[in-house]
């Protein structure tokens, strides 16, 4: 079976990879591109652990076929920090102990960034609904919500 050649932009850099026509974008990112930050928790779009942003839209990369990435611009958790500087969300997750096992954390960070990009000053309720597509089984969400609040405040101050 011939493979599909995909050209796109990932975390600001030009990227290309070969994939199978039926391969998910999540599998292509993990197995072809080597970016394993996005995780597969369910494979059915219910847990959000594979969250990425593609052309400005937050989505579950397990629900996207890899060839659909042709010509798109993709951001993953690996692109959030710039050099040595963590994104304020990453910093606030660390300082606020907003992760335990950490397997859902990349998805939460990507989803939270997408939320703050479109709503820089969300209420607690808006944060909770904005992150309702991401499952965390460890934290009870309390410290995650607080970390997003702290990051929003930090971004708005700067």
């Amino acid at each position, binding site marked *: 079976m011939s493979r599909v050649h995909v050209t796109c932009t990932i975390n600001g850099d030009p990227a290309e990879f070969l994939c199978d026509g039926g391969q998910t974008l999540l599998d292509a990112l993990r197995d072809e591109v080597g970016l394993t930050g996005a995780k597969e928790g369910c494979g*059915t779009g219910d847990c959000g652990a594979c969250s990425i942003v593609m052309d400005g839209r937050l989505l579950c990369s397990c629900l996207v076929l890899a060839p659909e990435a042709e010509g798109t611009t993709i951001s993953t*958790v690996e692109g959030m920090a710039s050099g040595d500087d963590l994104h304020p969300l990453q910093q606030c997750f*660390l300082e606020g*102990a907003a992760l*335990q096992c950490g*397997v859902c*954390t990349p998805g939460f960070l990507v989803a939270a960034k997408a939320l703050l990009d479109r709503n820089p000053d969300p209420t607690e309720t808006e944060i909770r609904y904005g992150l309702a597509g*991401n*499952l965390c089984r460890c934290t*009870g969400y309390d410290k995650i919500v607080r970390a997003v609040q702290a990051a929003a405040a930090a971004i708005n101050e700067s």
Partner: protein
Amino acid sequence: MTVTEPKPSYKYVGTRPVRHDGLEKVTGRARFAADLNMSGQLHGIVVRSPHAHARIVSIDTSEAEAMPGVKAVIIGDDFPAVEPGHRQYDMCINVIARDKVLYEGHAVAAVAASTRDQAQAAAAAVKVEYDVLPAVLTIDQALAPDAPVLHAHMMTAGANPPAEEPSNISNITRFSGGELDAGFAEADLVIEREFTTQPVHQGYIEPHACVADTGQDGHTTIWCSSQGHFNVRSSTATLLGWETTRIRVIPAEIGGGFGGKTTIYLEPLAVALSAKAGRPVKMVMTRDEVFRATGPAPGTKLRIKLGVQSDGNLVAGDAYLIYTNGAYAGPGGLLGAMTVFESYKIPNFEVEALDVVINTARSAAYRAPAAPLTAYALETMLDELAEELGIDAMDLRLKNAVAEGDPSTMGFPFARIGFVECLEAVRDHPHFTAPLGPNQGRGLAAGYWFNIGESSSATVNLNEDGTATVVTGSPDIGGSRASMALMAAEELGIDPHDIRPVVGDTEAVGFTDITEGSRATFATGMAVVEACRKMVVELRGRAAKMMGADIDDVDWVDGQAVYTGSDGDKDPLSMAAICAKAKRTGGPLTATGSLEAHGAGPGFAVHLCDVEVDQETGVVRVVRYTASQDAGTAIHPSYVEGQIQGGVAQGVGWALNEEYIYDSDGVMENPSFLDYRVPVASDLPMIDAIIVEVPNPAHPYGVRGVGETGIVPPIPAVANAIYDATGCRLRDLPMSPIRVLEAITANGGSNGS
């Protein structure tokens, strides 16, 4: 918020540094088991039974073996035979079925191929002929006189008189204290209630995964997601009939466990496939497989009778508990019996608990196994008693709560415990007296878990620059590495970030039991402290050599060797200075601690929950939640709070939504996060965690395990709150909208009673 009784002042213990493994986890660089790939790796897929109960007539793998890319196919007969009575018989035949499948999803074969697609295609081509047997799916079916028997060898343990015929009851636990009949005779009020609950899943976000690489020399290395890699080693060795030294297990980061990763499923299959193919084999479960084939917590039927005097003194308790453990013997009923009456002074009691097997996946531990369900029954009944007697629910609990010196139902007297302090912390919290809105109700409930000790090992290595590496054998499932570093920092007197806490593989550190029973920070922490204390003696000796002094004249103060003798002044020596000269004073600085930890202090928790009930739809929304818990001493308070908050969220899901649903053939109908709905952020409010610190006398820093107790009170707290809001007592889980609505309707509409 922390309630603290006088304790030593610590420099590092009780602070909240950024966890050492945090940066990798917020940047996507942390390596979980499914993130690992080996050169030349194959992909392994499990062939699973579509039937809940069937005899395997034949397995034909020839077509699968001939398919493109297929390098190995294995079935149960490829493993050494095991007979009933074997120490790990259940584990062995659960990992791969032999003559019978016992639940839908039971592994019957496994395939390794060059790609996952090829492996999946080959798995579908494995031909298994089944002789389908009637499935036993409920407790009532399992106990029926003519029930099909799952295991022909299962003679009920603990039966009196001894069992003469095999049955589906694996175990009966009985114990008692006082005189039950006399106790009930003293009671002014007696109530008896029955409850049913359904199996629920731990719901860790990371599916089980491993990679095994077996060399031509017959040695294998396994990278896996597990709560206990030494257990993975021993179980794999047992199943394969291999010597332990042939197996090295390297723990990957683990994406949640909650008890569900204390057993094994994939690793021996991956090793066997790898050995047969001569290539590394990676196996990753799908979520569907996780639901169908791994660790639900038991379902139950519970009947409890309580007797109380008019002043609120509990005088008698009688419990009859039945727990399903899935298709194999399990400890659900035993653990329920050990916890049901443990929190309160009940002088006359009897407990009988049955462990029952049914044709569903083998149960695995889930956070304080069994205790949330006995608490559900007991704590909602206490609410009923309080209302009947006109006594405040908090006062009833305070009056009967166990304290230091009181006998437990297990017979031993409690050491210093913090149950009363947890009750008082909630009573004194503003939430306790805050007004409620329309359609809202408030529920109070307590919970108990005994916690365990077990074996732990730790090694402390000092580096040339005076920094330290702390290696333990405890997989970190909730921030325990940070706790190890904090305790080591306190002992050594150096900054926690000058210490690197590491989880060592099975060849890098001494034997360590599974991270379970809330034991890691308690028991492995003790091993770290022991190693550090040996290291401090060594450091004093090295410094004494450098100073030309006697070791008895050198103290270790704040990370420095300080001369206390009378031979004039000598400059203190820092850790770095001593490490720099290590080659000249006796060589590398390393110390180990290994121990069997005793005295795991019991954990108590008290929760207060406000719900709002939609009287037209039955939807229950948790609107405020406060939870106190005795941590003994909180080493890293943020992660203690996290354990409490996480337990609350899981308990609320268990109370309101979560359940396994099977069709009449025993096929699971909701094996996805869409249909098995765990709480999301918009389902929950902030969870106010109150850390109570009543130090555990058996631990050098007073630690009590905190991982499990927090899941015990939420179910009854929610149930009591629903009652307060609706006047309806719900005694069947989950308290889903349809059940709540039925109860409201049966009760004559909203707020009837």
